[in-house]
């Protein structure tokens, strides 16, 4: 998406450039892998043109991310995929934790990366890089994105490739991912095809995802996760409905924090947040020959949440009267309660966090952080 030119003499806007990234390596010794190749795929999202580059390190010497990106930019300009080095672009990989750590200068930029769902992405400030061009050094900002975060959890690169119509190249019989050096030695051409495909897929996936987010949902922001896209969508919907989101969420617009008088009540509400509860009650192994049903209501969360009105944050207060707390539609309530179910209760429903992160348990007796509807 091209930015509007804010000034008569402002620089021409950059094309939407995504650089797919991948690396192949082989285990060398404990704690050390030998890099076989780095692959880059530069995709001009505006024109759809693509250029690929594979870099073989000399004697296993790792390259810096700036050198790799410089070289792919030079190649892209040589092939007229881009007219100049863009000042802002996206670097995409699938499971960046494995690939981006292979660069020699990872230690220099790792503090700019955020850890999101056990992988790396730039969540706040992009990487500030200095690349080489024929016109001199160019300062660029690179946003690191992991396609694992832009796809349903656990989606493999192979599956993304299939969805894009690009099938992942299979290793021939007798070769394995553990010994890619043998594959490179025996089939260098096929190795190159195999390796480059893994860089092309993330680039295409990012462009496709952002295209869909813009076309279908009107989201312009280059979000790092699908959850981020959901947040943007809420913001767009709130704006369309004339809802001031900070006011709606009980936040101070200037400080971007919860309103001062809500601090203590929000802490209680956060403790009482446990997620949904559905169960298929049976003890031990499933009874032979008997069907067990686990009901999962479609869109249950969104339907339930749509019943919540606009909270009146100014009337938020502490109270301990059970008749005021045990309500559903009259108020949003949450409390720490000590409880005991009658003897013989088969399915106690108040959640208690088990020790050592073992999740939630539902005992007959105990203390539970829970909400008003739990007590009805």
């Amino acid at each position, binding site marked *: 998406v091209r930015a509007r030119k804010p000034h*008569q*003499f*402002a*620089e021409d806007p950059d094309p939407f450039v995504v650089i797919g990234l991948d690396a192949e390596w082989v285990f060398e010794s404990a704690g050390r892998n030998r890099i076989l190749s780095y692959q880059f795929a530069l995709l001009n999202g505006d024109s759809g043109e693509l250029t690929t580059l594979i870099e073989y390190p000399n004697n296993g010497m790792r390259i810096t991310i700036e*050198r790799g990106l410089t070289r792919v930019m*030079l190649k892209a300009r*040589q092939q007229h995929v881009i007219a100049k080095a863009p000042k802002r672009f996206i670097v995409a990989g699938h499971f960046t934790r494995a690939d981006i750590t292979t660069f020699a200068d990872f230690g220099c930029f790792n503090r700019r990366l955020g850890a999101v769902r056990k992988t790396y992405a730039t969540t706040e400030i992009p990487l500030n890089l200095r690349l*080489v061009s*024929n016109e*001199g050094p160019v300062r660029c900002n690179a946003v690191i994105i992991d396609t694992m975060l832009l796809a349903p959890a656990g989606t493999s690169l192979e599956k993304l490739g299939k969805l894009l119509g690009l099938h992942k190249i299979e290793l021939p019989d007798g070769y394995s991912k553990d010994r890619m050096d043998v594959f490179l030695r025996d089939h260098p051409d096929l190795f190159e095809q195999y390796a480059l495909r893994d860089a092309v897929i993330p680039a295409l996936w990012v462009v496709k995802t952002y295209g869909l987010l813009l076309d279908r949902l009107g989201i312009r922001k280059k979000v790092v996760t699908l959850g981020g896209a959901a947040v943007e969508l809420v913001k767009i919907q709130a704006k369309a409905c004339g809802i001031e989101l900070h006011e709606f969420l009980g936040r101070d617009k200037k400080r971007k924090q919860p309103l001062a008088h809500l601090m203590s009540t929000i802490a209680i509400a956060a403790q009482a947040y446990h997620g949904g509860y559905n169960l298929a009650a049976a003890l031990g192994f499933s009874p032979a020959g008997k069907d067990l049903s686990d009901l999962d209501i479609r869109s249950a969360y969104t339907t339930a949440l749509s019943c919540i009105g606009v909270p009146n944050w100014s009337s938020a207060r502490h109270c301990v009267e059970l008749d005021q707390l045990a309500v559903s539609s009259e108020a949003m309530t949450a409390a720490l309660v000590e409880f005991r179910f009658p003897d013989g209760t088969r399915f106690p429903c108040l959640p208690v966090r088990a020790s050592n992160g073992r999740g939630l348990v539902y005992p007959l007796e105990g203390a539970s952080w829970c909400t008003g509807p739990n007590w009805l």
Partner: protein
Amino acid sequence: MSDLGFEELAAGNYQGTVEKVRYSFGTTTHIVLTYRLETPNGARRLQERILIDAPQSSVSYFHITTGLTRVEDILRIGGMSLADATGLKSLPGLLEGIAINVVTRNQRLHGYNCPIVVRVEKA
């Protein structure tokens, strides 16, 4: 020329002109000066991106002197001064087309001899 189309430029003094002046706006404002140099291998472009405006609270605030000095140098070569510029919009018209000598050197960057502008002189 390297395998990827990178052309080295020997350090030296080249006749040239200020071809294009553009700005990059953000929290700070950079001026992007494109020089057209006449080299033995033909015309070649070099680009400089220098800070010319920043809020006083910015850590880069003192760097604006570098940008303003470069602009002032080019204006002086063209027989003008900073006082002739009435704002950012007037600068491109004043700077573009001025004939200058550009002194360059090379900086080793990511395995390349990357040309950079050292200073500009009267042609």
